[in-house]
């Protein structure tokens, strides 16, 4: 089905649906309130039977709306994909409706998005962290989170008391060599972020 046919069909259930800029598959922006009903229509009436990917984009610490949830649906009958994106309302504590009643695969992928972006999925049956440990206080894929991470208490207080160790930021000396988009000539070369260990300074023990 062509993108504009799909669009008019979807606008019957959600009039505010807009086309989203895309380089490949049809993509739509939809208000977060009608996300569930749009995806349900796609699944029931348009053969999009697989939720392949559910994730989010952090549009930057200054941007508003800051978080966008993105879903990729796949039709195993027509073998095509579709992208649905929705902006979360609250920039401080973003939330989105869960798609778990429609697709079982949404469970883990939404847990992952919650873990890495801090987007709460309303009525999710089991919203726990999945990749980071349960006590971890940050959401690492947010743009303000540094590449190396933060120093953090160990999750097991018993081991922490006995060994005195902490979760340390990753050493940046020796890589990964980061490249940034910049107009300033000096920033163009990929450099290690950490300066504590280079030609001028000894390697710390």
């Amino acid at each position: 089905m062509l993108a504009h046919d799909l669009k008019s069909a979807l606008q019957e259930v959600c009039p505010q649906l807009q086309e989203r800029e895309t380089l490949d598959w049809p993509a739509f922006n939809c208000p977060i309130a009608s996300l569930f009903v749009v995806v349900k229509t796609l699944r029931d009436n348009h053969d999009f039977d697989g939720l392949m990917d559910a994730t989010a984009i952090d549009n930057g610490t200054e941007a508003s709306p800051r978080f966008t949830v993105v879903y990729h649906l796949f039709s195993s009958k027509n073998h095509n994909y579709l992208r649905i994106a929705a902006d979360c309302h609250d920039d401080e504590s973003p939330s989105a409706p869960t798609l778990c009643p429609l697709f079982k695969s949404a469970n883990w992928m939404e847990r992952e998005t919650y873990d890495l972006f801090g987007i709460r999925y309303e009525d999710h049956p089991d919203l726990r962290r999945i990749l980071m440990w349960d006590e971890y206080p940050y959401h690492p894929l947010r743009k303000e989170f540094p590449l190396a991470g933060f120093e953090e208490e160990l999750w097991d207080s018993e081991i922490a008391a006995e060994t005195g160790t902490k979760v340390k930021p990753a050493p940046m000396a020796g890589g990964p060599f980061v490249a940034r988009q910049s107009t300033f000539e000096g920033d163009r070369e990929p450099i290690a972020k950490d300066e504590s260990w280079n030609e001028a300074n000894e390697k710390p023990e």
Partner: protein
Amino acid sequence: MPTDKAEYTAPDSGAKTAAAAQKFETEHLEMSMGPSHPSTHGVLRLNLELDGEIVKMCDPVLGYLHRGDEKIAENMTYNQFVPYTDRLDYLAPLANNAAYAMAVEKLANLEVPERCQAIRVLTTELARISAHLLGLGAYSMDVGALTVFMITFTEREKLYKLFEDLTGARFTTSYTRIGGVTRDMPDGWMDRVLTFCEEFLPLLDDVEALLARNRIWFDRTADVGVISKEDAVSYGLTGPNLRGSGVDVDLRRDAPYSGYENYEFEVPLGEKGDCYDRYAVRMEEMRQSVRIVRQAIDKMPEGPFYAEEATKIFAPNKGKILTSMEELIQNFMITTEGPDMPAGEVYFEAENPKGALGFYIVSKGGGVPYRLKIRGPSFNNLSILEKVCVGGMVSDIPAILGSLDFVMGECDR
């Protein structure tokens, strides 16, 4: 394939359970399996709740291998990320390299030459054979058939020798670049691949003879871990696990990329979706991969192995860099700023050995992705554990895990 086999029950299990229920209050036992357990193939932990030998609840705990690849990708150029893709499904790095490069080329709307496409198909299929060989070997070892492991590992070693000759590395190949591959195939390499194929097929028959009619293998895998068609689709399973349940989806055939439409191959399907079917599908996929490899070598087009006209994406020939000013500048720009990419969003999935490996790239232009999401097939393949393990025996879990053939590297990313 057996159809008349009765459902397996432990001897006298019904009578024993009934007797036990009369006398004792049964208590559920919580058990943690992993993260370091031979059958979890990496660092997967299963929190199990057991009633005797029966699994009542299974809660997989992931993240032990989480490295933050997506965060790292936001901080480096597209080409710098290629080595990180080796470490996703580290049993088939050549396939990951190709999938990632194709995703970025889709963003750049870049068509690579036919020879490059054919090389990628060839290496992806060899990687598929090597990944299935390891998966099958480890799977059979987990359920007690040690000999298979010895055979498949010997074959896999031959493949790694070929990979080393091609890329310079056995495991972490980093073979592709955006817009091409790092180097052309060495002289005589394709002949050695053909020799491998020649020797490999009889050995595959030997492996099948060891397993396919083996009573123990049957008992451990047939009717164990049955995944229905509906569940397989709903849980987002892909690859051999999806086809083992009888769902006829193979991206190589259905959404062809890299010239897969030019090759003839069959897509094997399972019937019941049990552990045996998933084994049988992988077995047949290896034969089909050999078929594709032979066709690729037979039809290998001449020409460049990278997109020569894409001067802002692929670094020029090394010899030219050292002698020509223009090429030196071009190389410097691609190395420091990264390849020149348009702004936009793409999502690309490739049919990898474990399933559909997807890359969702959000670009704001320039050489660094704004957001790169990796859809690891093993992540979704494992999410079904909470359903498929429940109601079975504890001893079924190694068979189920082996048949799902997952890799934690791409699951935890």
